[in-house]
């Protein structure tokens, strides 16, 4: 009898470890943001496999927000109250993340945002909201620092989509160039999905800026560069901040994408532990190059799941462990710190890259560089 009781006790004590950790995922799996959302989905799927190998059992609850904040919010409500998840990884876009962040705080559910850029998300003192990627100000400052170190730009033109991501990235960029003595000669926002940016670009061309700073998602990035070539916009450098300028589709359009400078959170040639291996396995499994979103999502899921397991599936303990923990993996060193008004923000090192001969090559910082930067931008053919 006593033996049986002991066994039962042992079994009970073991259950929290064996029990699958229930973790929510909110992502844009359909809708206009789906092409990038797919990277996040794949990254998380790869993480799920690796976790299983490590003996961390996770049960993922997937929610599709279709890129709309209101759907994202109802997904969060469901995950927090009905599904009772330990933590949530996601959502993708800034607008969705910002909406969901406040709910995470309300329901006291640890939320780890993998790849949303808007700064405010981690600047509201929300204790349950963590972010893996570097926020928008880092995009802007690393790109402008790169341009300033390569040449002597005096003027800059901004063109960005009028969404949370576009306006917040370019706002910080504008504040940053002011401190560098670079003059803003054009400042244009556009509604995404327009067919024709020629008139706007012609207007920017008439100002003859040294730098053109663009913030766009995938399709618009290609359209903007095509039409820049059409109207003959010829700055010293095209700086593409974020999403649209760091995709394989964009690099494939060599006639218009070569020599565009962008920055990214991650590439597979960086020497962070496991980065190369992650890139290779991702390509083998999904037949596509991973974007930084995939790596961010992968690292986020690994950290969330391991922390949740170590905390026995308890939300409060998970939150505390995320706050105090330190990791080193595909995303380099990760620590959720409080600095410059940010709360629980990973101070991530951005990589500046340039498309050279149809391939993304890291050009800055020097210790990660694979090629030397081409500057100024060559004349359009």
């Amino acid at each position, binding site marked *: 009898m006593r033996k049986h009781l002991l066994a039962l006790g042992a079994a009970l004590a073991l259950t929290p470890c064996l029990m699958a950790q229930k973790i929510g995922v909110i992502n844009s799996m359909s809708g206009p943001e789906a092409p990038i959302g797919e990277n996040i989905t794949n990254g998380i799927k790869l993480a799920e496999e690796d976790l299983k190998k490590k003996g961390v059992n996770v049960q993922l609850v997937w929610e599709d927000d279709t890129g709309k904040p209101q759907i994202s919010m109802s997904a969060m409500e469901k995950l927090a109250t009905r599904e009772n998840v330990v933590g949530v990884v996601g959502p993708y876009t800034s607008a969705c993340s910002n909406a969901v962040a406040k709910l995470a705080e309300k329901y006291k559910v640890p939320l780890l945002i993998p790849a949303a850029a808007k700064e405010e998300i981690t600047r509201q003192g929300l204790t349950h909201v963590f972010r893996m990627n570097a926020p928008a100000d880092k995009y802007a400052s690393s790109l402008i620092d790169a341009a300033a170190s390569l040449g002597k730009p005096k003027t800059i033109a901004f063109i960005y989509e009028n969404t949370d991501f576009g306006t917040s990235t370019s706002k910080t960029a504008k504040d940053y160039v002011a401190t560098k003595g670079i003059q803003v000669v054009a400042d244009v926002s556009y509604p995404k999905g327009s067919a024709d940016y020629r008139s*706007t670009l012609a207007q920017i061309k008439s100002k003859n800026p040294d730098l053109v700073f663009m913030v766009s998602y995938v399709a618009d990035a290609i359209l903007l560069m095509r039409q820049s070539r059409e109207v003959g916009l010829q700055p010293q450098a095209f700086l593409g901040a974020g999403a649209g300028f760091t995709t394989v589709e964009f690099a494939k359009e060599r006639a218009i994408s070569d020599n565009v400078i962008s920055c990214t959170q991650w590439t597979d040639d960086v020497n962070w532990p496991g980065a190369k291996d992650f890139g290779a396995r991702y390509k083998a499994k999904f037949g596509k190059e991973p974007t930084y979103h995939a790596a961010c999502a992968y690292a986020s899921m690994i950290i969330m799941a391991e922390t949740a397991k170590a905390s026995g599936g308890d939300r409060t303990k998970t939150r505390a462990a995320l706050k105090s923990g330190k990791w080193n993996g595909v995303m380099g060193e990760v620590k959720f710190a409080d600095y410059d008004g940010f709360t629980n923000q990973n101070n991530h090192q951005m990589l500046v890259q340039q498309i050279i001969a149809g391939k993304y090559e890291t050009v800055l910082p020097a210790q990660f560089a694979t090629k030397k930067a081409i500057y100024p931008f060559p004349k359009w053919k």
Partner: protein
Amino acid sequence: MAVFLQSLISGILIGGVYALIGIGLTLIFGVMRVINFAHGDILMVGMYLTYMIFTLLGIDPFVSVLITFPLMFLFGGFLQKVFINRVLDALAQNQILLTIGLGLIMSNTVMLIFTSDYKILSTSYSSATIKVGGGVSVSTPLLISFLITAAITAALYWFLLKTDTGQAIRATAQDRDAAQLMGINVKRMSIIAFGLGSALAGTAGALISPTYYIFPQVGSVFTLKAFVITVLGGMGSVVGATLGGVLIGITESMSAVYISSGWKDVVVFVLFLLVLLFKPSGLMGKSRT
């Protein structure tokens, strides 16, 4: 000045394609009094058709219009015969629900087949330009598509004005019952009208695809635009839709430069409201009693 000319030219060129979309919608409305909410999705189908023909058969998007047009005509005729004809006498909201439903089925089917990835159709001339001088350049693909649009519109006018079938379509549009009493097969005219409308939308899709991008939800952008154009020009008026399309193209382009890119839609809708306020039946529309 260069900026002004540049935006005027791109406005007119892009407006030409808008006009083609608008004409298709107005034709369908004129003949059947059915507001086709699937119009943008039909355009999207045209885009994917062009994309397939280009990637699988290697036929240039502009040449493939010759294939796209008849195929989309058949597709439209099929939709009309199988679905729309059944609700012609039903309540307006039932017709709207049917076309919205058809649109949803189209976009989701395409999403299942092609996934939601953006497709970019890159031709050798996708970003080619013709320099006009004075710092103004004209996008080659846009110019070609404008010329094709103009040719199609002219052919359509000729068809509607000079041929027997064209006159029968116009008669059906004017008064369905009277046309039927005169011995016109109105059901058949409806099929032709819907087929033509779809073919025009599909062609517009084909013409935009070398310069735009293709994804399953692209239709909604153009459905809304087609409405504004059609209502602005006067529901059912082909001339009005042509005028409306070019007008919207120029307005978008000009307001992007002189007001702000982010406000161009607002300018378009304010213009739209003003026209409705002073001429409720649209620019070329006849008021109905």
